[in-house]
């Protein structure tokens, strides 16, 4: 009897060893980017895909400090106006060529030309032709003013290092890309952080959220982006009003909109795992709670006119419908236009509804990015909710994590036997 019990117990025992190498996983995502060239990711899935394929010179630690990546160390000279980054001699690209300073400088110039918010911030600090390769192993950065360290802007995925043939140095090598449908990658044995545990993974586009959830529940996929599980409150849902367009040129009108939106109800009914939020920086960067003010369900203000509300495609439709209802209740006739997140940022619509996830997870850079997004009146940007970047996983999947940058990292993911 005892022997039988022991056998049964062995069969039932959690068989999780690890971390274990090997295996492949399928990740359900709402959409797939058109490509994997370095860029400022506009959505969680772009951040996921680019993070799989690319590596940067420096990264940001969970505590918010600069950490080594392809550059293993850095040192100041000229009183802090020059910083020299030493490349890790083990760093290699996917085509097995070494990562050289010339590759890094070329990539930095590409980053500056991309004119992302972080790149613009970096450009303002860098001296003219301030990125140099004095030899194959060192990158010299010359700045207009002394600095306390290398710029965190280099942690942007848009600043990822590629070689002249376009090869990246991230933890996975892209092997198959069917635009909009499937992206398959395999483990990169020479990744600077070590070979990922998984042999490979596939991102599969499943636009319908209910179907993603069902596929995960049925075990047809191993992970599903956007599902509850591993989470980081790395995004802020923001309603941006354009003060140069009526009726939002009037402070009273902006105030009326702010008072009309009931953040608590919005979160409770339409944004599971989110929090009512009144700061523009997400909780991962704000470092403190920002409880929502008590709801003010009625307002005496009445607004008139037609406006366009540009809605980012990663904002749930139920949320944008609720916002439209609030604006409608104030007397505005709202035409909601769904757009890609990057297009919403550049849109000239009177109102924009978007998820703000900073390009780089650092507060001062994020504030600069917000200033560019909301150029005039500070009260024209209404933070509504702190929204998690999340990934759900089936039982037996370990090691996935959501970083403070809003990037879902899968290089430490492994499968229980």
């Amino acid at each position, binding site marked *: 009897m*005892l*022997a039988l019990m*022991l*056998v049964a117990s*062995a*069969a039932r*025992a*959690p*068989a*999780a*060893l*690890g*971390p*274990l*190498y*090997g295996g492949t996983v399928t990740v359900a995502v709402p959409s797939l980017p058109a490509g994997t060239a370095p860029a400022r990711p506009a959505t969680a899935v772009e951040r996921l895909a680019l993070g799989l394929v690319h590596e940067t010179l420096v990264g940001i630690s969970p505590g918010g400090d600069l950490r080594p990546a392809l550059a293993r160390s850095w040192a100041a000279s000229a009183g802090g106006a020059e910083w020299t980054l030493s490349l890790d001699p*083990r760093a290699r690209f996917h085509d097995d060529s070494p990562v050289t300073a010339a590759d890094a400088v070329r990539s930095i110039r590409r980053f500056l030309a991309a004119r992302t918010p972080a790149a613009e911030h970096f450009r303002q600090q860098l001296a003219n032709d301030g990125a140099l390769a004095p030899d194959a192993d060192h990158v010299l950065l010359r700045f207009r003013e002394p600095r306390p360290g290398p710029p965190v802007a280099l942690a942007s995925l848009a600043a990822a290092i590629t070689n002249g043939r376009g090869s990246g140095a991230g933890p996975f090598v892209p092997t198959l890309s069917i635009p909009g449908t499937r992206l398959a990658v395999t*483990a990169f*044995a*020479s*990744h*600077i*952080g*070590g*070979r*990922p*545990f998984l042999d490979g993974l596939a991102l599969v586009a499943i636009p319908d959220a209910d179907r993603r959830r069902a596929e995960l529940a049925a075990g047809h996929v191993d992970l599903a982006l956007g599902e509850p599980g591993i989470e980081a409150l790395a995004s802020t849902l923001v309603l941006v009003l354009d003060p140069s367009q009526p009726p939002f040129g009037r402070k009273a009108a902006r105030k009326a909109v702010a008072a009309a939106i009931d953040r608590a109800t919005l979160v409770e009914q339409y944004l599971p795992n989110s929090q009512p939020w009144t700061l523009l920086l997400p909780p991962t960067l704000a470092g403190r709670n920002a409880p929502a003010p008590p709801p003010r369900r009625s307002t005496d203000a009445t607004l008139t006119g037609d406006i366009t509300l540009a809605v980012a495609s990663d904002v749930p439709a139920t949320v944008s419908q609720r916002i439209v209802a609030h604006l409608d209740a104030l007397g505005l006739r709202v035409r909601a236009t769904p757009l890609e997140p990057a297009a919403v940022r550049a849109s000239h619509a009177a109102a924009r509804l978007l998820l703000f996830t900073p390009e780089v997870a650092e507060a001062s850079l994020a504030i600069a990015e917000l200033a560019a997004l909301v150029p005039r009146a500070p009260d024209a940007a209404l933070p509504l909710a702190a929204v998690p970047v999340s990934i759900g996983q089936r039982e037996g999947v*370990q090691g996935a994590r959501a970083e403070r940058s809003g990037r879902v990292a899968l*290089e*430490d993911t492994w499968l*229980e*036997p």
Partner: protein
Amino acid sequence: MAPGLLLFIFLQAAPVADAMELVPQGRDVGAPGFVLDLAFLDDQRLLALTEHALLLYRIEDVTPALEARLELPGARLAVRAPAGLLRASEAERVCWLITNGRARASLVAVEGRGLAVRLEAEAVPWAGSATGLRYRAGTNLLLLGESPFLAMREGGLAVAPDGRLAVDGRSPAQGRRVGAALDRLGSLIVASSSRPPGATDSLELIPLEGELTGLAAQVKIDGSISALAARDRRREPLVVAAIQGRDGVTRLVSYAVRPRP
């Protein structure tokens, strides 16, 4: 019957379930780094392999005392899960070592109170294998020919990648799953548990018989066992476990193996 004789019988013949106990002995000793493997060189000396160094301890009564340290040669490779293996030879006073963080295996001689690298090779020589034992590049999987294992011990003891125990190349389908730390003690296998990293671990004594499903003793560990060595020292068996605590510090803890009163 004298306790020593009773224990001798237990070590020669597989004991019944829960027949034994593991009792902490002596003082815990802090290890300078994460311990990848442990191996007794003889009754008095224990070798410990970390990511960076090979350490020689003298066992004073039951407590290890550091005697020598050798920095490992060669450039370090990046790995997410560090792993290593020691194969000690008491007769030759040498040990082979290999880690997944370095490209080559090393043969190290124990000379008095010192350690010296004698040879470097592509793999650790292993009985029955023409190519020896090496790590699959970048992983914690040991390759014996083309077959991967999480851990291996001389005498045909191994842990398959799914954690299943294997003896002489045979891995029972319903066999017990264990962690990557193990050693042999007579007719017993001393192993860590198959619980996931971070959870409470346990030290297990598994009779080397049948389908390997039995459990002669089990003791809960507050931390995670990264390496084990066991030796029947003049019929006084001693198990040394490298245990990484929640504070990230690794300690060497000695256990006596006794018949349960």
